């Protein structure tokens, strides 16, 4: 039950003199600070943080939490994000003191258990990818992309192929792909989609040349379609001396069914917070490990966990390594959860994840496609993209209106207006952890909503704490912090 108590801003709840934390009396000689630190370095007073009592603090944040939809409270079919159930056992295990209270610069001898977990995770991710070398360092999918492209850059430089300056990216790709390419020092070149929503081979052929460094592909792609031309695509790219990168955002569809390494990808990233049920943390943290072919392994960031006999150690000895993309080892807390997940499911369980993710998506597609246009494909993999184009044209009801109205019925909205190749896109990914009853309720709602009066939809939501925010105002006169 959502209620307004204590949801004023923290700063408005603040009263001078209130506290929620005490520091023990100092048990070392109480020398004046002026003896310890130069006067010029000291602030006159501490920062003007709010002052709240513990009950105010807890009531504030707990009441705020009730103003969220989350996987634990609502069906959350946010396409491309794989909002599956987050097992509670992972939270308890990741919080074990023997894992959570380990300092990143401890000697290897003093954290053999953790290194064993990370080593095993490297091995398991290599097997699932069909690519032998893994770096667990990247903090999220986008950083995994960047890391891989930096690896590719170093690889080509090492081979003296300095002319390889371009990264080819399908127009249906996530925005992180071109952004990562630019940051890695490449020119991003867009490849068209064909009428089936797949890579336009003619356009790819026309743009492949000796300047091509990498072709980035999301497969299944953001339309939820497996690109069955993948064999031809990877062959073409390799013929031109380029590398194939797999954006692993959609790995939930193909676990144990086909492996990127087996279909010709040379490198890829995982989103542990998606495929291996992170959780998502209201926007992070994630973890974006990458897997690459043997030939690229020397360029991976360091350190990697290595094993000698029964002893695990951090291996920094990689002279061709690109270096680091962050401090310390990686987002270990999320990696531990990913390890828990793969160890819980095993090979058979992972395969069943993909089978049921694809089953659930196709079931929703089958129930909805009579009422909503689905421009690409009679079938899909783990997600599909419907379009509200007709509704828009005939009744001035947009994808956003549908999305907002769903909130009134207790369903989180699908991803909207992405991918860009579908007008008025509604990208729906149910995941395997939802029951048929939930899917039916969601489908029934979408069917019902479609026939509601335009005015009801255009002004939705009607039952949440707030109605639609004025986003134009927010961007035009940005207020990014509270001020007294």
């Amino acid at each position: 039950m959502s209620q307004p108590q204590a949801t004023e801003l923290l700063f408005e709840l603040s009263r001078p003199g209130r506290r929620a934390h005490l520091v023990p009396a100092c048990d070392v000689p109480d020398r004046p600070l002026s003896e310890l630190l130069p006067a010029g370095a000291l602030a006159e007073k501490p920062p003007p943080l709010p002052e709240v009592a513990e009950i105010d603090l807890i009531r504030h944040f707990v009441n705020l939490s009730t103003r969220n939809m989350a996987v634990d409270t609502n069906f959350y079919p946010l396409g491309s994000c794989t909002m599956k159930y987050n097992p509670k056992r992972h939270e308890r295990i990741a919080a074990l003191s023997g894992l959570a209270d380990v300092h990143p610069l401890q000697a290897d001898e003093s954290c053999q258990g953790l290194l064993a977990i990370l080593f095993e995770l490297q091995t398991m991710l290599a097997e699932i990818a069909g690519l032998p070398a893994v770096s667990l360092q990247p903090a999220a999918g986008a950083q995994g992309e960047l890391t891989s492209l930096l690896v590719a850059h170093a690889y080509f430089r090492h081979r003296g192929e300095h002319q390889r300056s371009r990264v080819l990216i399908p127009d249906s790709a996530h925005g992180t792909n071109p952004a990562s390419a630019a940051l890695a020092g490449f020119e991003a070149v867009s490849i068209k989609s064909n009428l089936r929503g797949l890579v336009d081979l003619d356009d790819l052929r026309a743009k492949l040349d000796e300047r091509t460094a990498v072709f980035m592909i999301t497969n299944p792609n953001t339309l939820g379609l497996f690109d069955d031309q993948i064999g031809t695509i990877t062959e073409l790219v390799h013929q031109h001396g380029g590398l194939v990168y797999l954006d692993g955002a959609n790995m939930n569809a193909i676990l144990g069914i086909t492996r990127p390494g087996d279909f010709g990808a040379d490198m890829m990233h995982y989103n542990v917070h998606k495929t291996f049920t992170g959780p998502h943390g209201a926007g992070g943290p994630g973890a974006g490990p990458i897997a690459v072919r043997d030939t690229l392994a020397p360029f991976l960031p360091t350190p990697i966990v290595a094993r000698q006999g029964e002893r695990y150690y951090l291996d920094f000895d990689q002279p061709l390594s690109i270096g680091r993309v962050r401090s310390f080892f990686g987002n270990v807390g999320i990696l531990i959860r990913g390890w828990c997940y793969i160890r819980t499911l095993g090979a058979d369980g992972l395969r069943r994840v993909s089978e049921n993710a694809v089953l659930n998506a196709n079931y929703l597609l089958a129930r909805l496609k009579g009422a909503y246009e689905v421009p690409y494909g009679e079938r899909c993999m783990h997600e599909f993209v419907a379009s509200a184009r007709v509704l828009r044209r005939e009744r001035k009801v947009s994808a956003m209106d549908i999305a907002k109205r769903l909130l009134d019925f207790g369903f989180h909205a699908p991803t909207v207006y992405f991918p860009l190749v579908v007008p008025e896109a509604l990208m729906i990914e149910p995941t395997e952890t939802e029951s048929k009853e939930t899917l039916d309720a969601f489908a029934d709602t979408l069917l019902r909503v479609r026939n509601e009066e335009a005015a009801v939809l255009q002004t939705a939501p009607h039952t949440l704490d707030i109605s639609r925010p004025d986003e134009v105002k927010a961007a035009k006169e940005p207020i990014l912090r509270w001020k007294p």
Partner: protein
Amino acid sequence: MSYIPNTPNDQQAMLATIGVRSLTELFDVIPPAIRLERPLALPPALTEIELTRLAQQLAGRNRSTADTVCFLGGGSYDHFVPAVVDAVAGRSEFYTAYTPYQAEASQGSLQAFFEFQTLIAQLTGMDVANASLYEGGSAVAEAVLMASGLEPRRHHVLLADSVHPDYRQTLATYTANLDLHVQTLPTPAGFLDPADLKHALRDDTLCVVVQHPNFFGCLEEVEALAAISHACGALFIVSYDPISLGLLKRPGDYGADIAVAEGQALGIPLTYGGPYLGLLACRGEFVRRMPGRLVGQTVDRNGRRCWVLTLQTREQHIRREKATSNICTNQGLMALRAAVYLAALGPQGLRETAEACARKAHYTADQLTRLPGVSLQFDRPFFKEFTVRLPVGALERGLLDRLRDDGFHAGLPLGRWYSWLADCMSLAVTEKRTRAEIDALASALGRALTAK
């Protein structure tokens, strides 16, 4: 266990609706040649009881800071995490939500991130803060890239050698293929001498990057460095320790243009290096060049105050290759932890925590440097971390292993990054350390140094 509710009956009914006969048929689109025709070679599935047992066994093979007294720092610190932080971050309404794209269904997260941005602005004295980056190292890299976006004609970056080595490496990796030249300025006396900076600055210097307190624990002459940088038209970027701001002047007070930090100290467990929290704050006029998500305040159709993700035209999902950064997923839950931590401590709690760190660190330094052959490496003021020089070869002869056997993660040997400091280690002392622990460390070090 796959957390799948579908029963065989459900599956049959669903397959019938779809119009296919089997699950396998759903994958017909995948060419047979690339299908995996064997099970993945993975360890067998485990029940929760088995998994828990295995995880506990493996956790038991680590020397955690719960059983080994931690004086390790180097960018990750054993500060106390109040229970309220875990209580709030453990609310699954927060941790099982995603990026608050649908504002009406995400006001809880959005308001919390708006409060986080405000708290970081208050903490640093800067005008605005973003809703988080990955961690301290990529935050430095993002700050330099942001500076480059502000001043695209300048290409020369000056970086103090006293900045965390991981941060310097991260910056080098991020800028490897960009039109930026990073020059590292030596810090043999444990700090960047303003005179050295003055010499190194050029007309095309984009920015100066320092860490304060720095990797050795020493304070930098930030006011002088900022003024000298600005005189040459270069931006001044500082990586700070958030706890130190309970005592030290804030980046906004001494002229920083962009202030970044590792936010782990703000209520985030050590967890072997992550997930942590990248903090980035800057002057107000730079806001449209900032990387990462920003939450803004607005009103709904009824005029009610509310919050949304804003200025998204900076970001990759809109601007693609022209975005200010490639970051998408950030560290939302860690930002929430930091917000709860700062609110729990308040101004007085932060001041007392910082004072306790400073007093205990100085006491520790006093006790250790009484031992023969142990001295402070740098004659510079420090906050909670400091560098000691040990007798020649002591570290190589297993000093730290011995101290670990005595129950201490005693310090961080610096030779890995600085060959001239091969006989040095840094120690960090947080408010958690007690006089008894410090005295015991001094005794153990004394014994270890005189043994054999």
